[in-house]
């Protein structure tokens, strides 16, 4: 009887929605997420000039480059091929290719096609090896060294610049309806990728192979061609980012995407982090490209907020890293025991 009394008195105190949440996700997760949301909201309100339209545009613009790469990588991750460790190096190769072609005077269209061709070859090479059964992490680690070496050798480790005015200026510094063109490209690519993944046959095949490779094989959808296709998509997205970046600064160097890029360290790791922070399952089959785009916006928001609070790069990288580890742990706890996790 004594044991019953506190239980009865406690019952009305926890609201139904909270009880349901706890039932579903356990206390630990709910408390962690609540803490995080509170910190985030506090930072948002106290940061000066955070809640303005101009700052919002800045956030989206910062998210664009990483976001486009992350969308490309999402295809690979969704198809169950983990991730590519060569995103940055593919971009380095592409930026050198683009700038070389531009400085040789081939014009934007030809240079664009040439760069995309290089990216497709690079992606297909990795895709073939992955499709044959090589481990994606190791294959792309090797490919990363290879591409970076080729790019450095090709450019002699020098900065290649091409003079303004050039044909790519509209992509680098132009704007459309008040938004920079790169932002517009990011939004368009995000929409197209989501539509492709959701409604096209190819998109459904990606999900099928990612969630159940055996079933995919039994129904005639081999991972071999899928790995090649998804790797080409990821490489093409990297190349697009490289072109956009090169168009902005009218030059190219292999180290543009290395540790000095942005505030949060290495581009490859940032892209992978973006894909994972959004809760895409690394084992494939669960997630969407919309998640990745939102993840990019989210990381960029946190970064922006900390810049407005006046933090140095150390605490900012630390915060982004903490957030990634945090989201990995929370998503793992939420999905514990489900098939998505194993």
């Amino acid at each position: 009887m004594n044991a019953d009394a506190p239980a009865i008195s406690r019952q009305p105190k926890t609201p139904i929605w909270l009880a349901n949440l706890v039932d579903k996700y356990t206390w630990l997760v709910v408390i962690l997420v609540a803490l995080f949301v509170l910190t985030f909201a506090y930072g948002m309100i106290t940061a000066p000039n955070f809640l303005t339209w101009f700052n919002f545009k800045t956030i989206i613009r910062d998210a664009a480059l990483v976001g486009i790469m992350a969308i490309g990588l999402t295809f690979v991750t969704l198809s169950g091929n983990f991730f590519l460790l060569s995103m940055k190096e593919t971009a380095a190769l592409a930026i050198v290719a683009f700038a070389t072609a531009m400085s040789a005077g081939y014009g934007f269209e030809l240079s664009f096609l040439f760069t995309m061709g290089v990216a497709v070859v690079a992606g297909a090479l990795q895709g073939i090896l992955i499709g044959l059964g090589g481990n994606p992490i190791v294959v792309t680690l090797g490919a990363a060294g290879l591409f970076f070496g080729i790019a450095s050798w090709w450019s002699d480790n020098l900065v290649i610049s091409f003079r303004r005015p050039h044909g790519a200026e509209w992509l680098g510094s132009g704007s459309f309806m008040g938004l920079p063109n790169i932002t517009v490209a990011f939004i368009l690519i995000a929409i197209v990728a989501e539509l492709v993944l959701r409604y096209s046959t190819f998109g459904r095949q990606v999900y099928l192979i990612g969630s159940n490779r055996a079933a995919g094989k039994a129904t005639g959808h081999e991972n071999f061609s899928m790995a090649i296709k998804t790797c080409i998509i990821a490489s093409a997205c990297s190349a697009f980012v490289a072109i956009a970046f090169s168009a902005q600064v009218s030059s190219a160097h292999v180290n543009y995407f290395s540790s000095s890029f942005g505030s949060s360290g290495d581009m490859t790791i940032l892209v992978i982090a973006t894909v994972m922070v959004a809760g895409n399952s690394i084992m494939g089959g669960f997630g969407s490209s919309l998640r990745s785009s939102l993840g990019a916006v989210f990381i960029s928001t946190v970064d922006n907020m900390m810049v407005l609070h006046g933090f140095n790069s150390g605490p900012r990288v630390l915060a982004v890293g903490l957030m990634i580890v945090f989201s990995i742990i929370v998503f793992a706890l939420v999905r514990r025991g489900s098939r998505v996790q194993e």
Partner: protein
Amino acid sequence: MSNSSNISFISKAKLWVTNNPDLAFAVLLAVCVYGYFAFSNDLFATHRTTYAIMERFAVLGLVGLALTLCIIAGEIDLSIGSNAALAAVIVVRFTDSLGAINAALIAIAISTLVGLIQGYFIAYLRIRAIVLTVGTLMLLRGVSLFAAEEKTVMLTDFTIPDFISTKMFMYFSPASLLVIAVFVAVALFMQFTRYGREIYAVGGARKEALASGIDLKRPMMVVFSISGFCAGLGGCIIGLRSGTAQALGLQYLLLAGTVAAFIGGVSILGGRGGVIGAAIGTLTVNFLNTGLVFNVTPAFMVQLYLGVLLMVVIVFQTGSQMFDTYQRRQQVLGDVDLVRGELLNKKRESPI
């Protein structure tokens, strides 16, 4: 008499090669690389170069060893470069105030602890190590940036770098002797203790190992703490030897260490390979590195060669996997045919 012993030696060698094809391949590759550089460059096969190779071995060997253990357990530790950078930053920063030994002990303790926590979470959450270690890669970079205050930290007292690179016994220095001791200890641990065998079990056949009652937490924590320890020790050696440390440095260790591990004969499926393989693999990478330096190759070309080497090893491994599956499939098909043939015969014999 001498003839018979000769034959028995050859047959022993043959037996060894058949039993350890991966190790034999690693030895062959190492000898080839060494031979190529020794013949193409007069200065390569000298005592001084050997000393330089052993100096490189001190750091890369540790990373190769750590990655070998991780891959044996069926996982991969991507955060190893960041962990080493963190240790380097800590040791260089605190050497002046605490003394080199205390600072190194603190740095190694922190790195090992980081590895231990990683291993615990990987086993507890049942996630792939790559998922968590990508996160910790970034996190540790942030921590080391924070610890270094976004600057390159430097030693003021240069007696310690001198001591670490003192020549001993012709080829060795205190650092490389220490690393060799670590190698021997880990080799004994992996070969003769239950914990070491558990790591092989968890890597080679995880489901079966778990079903037979191994707690996933223990091997994972052991593997990742060894990995953290190796990264920490490697970072300390690099930091103290060069006298400087950068928070964003040492990222090249991952590629070089992975190449070393794969040359040493680990399989990405886990459960294969060993410490001797790691040593030979690292030596091969070091021969390549040092030899390329002799031929005045820029640093990025070394990366290119390492990438190509890794891809080649992967192609070989994938090819042998495909061949294995093909053979197994043929065998199963043959067995099925056999059974079907027997059934048909029985039907024919039976009157109904």
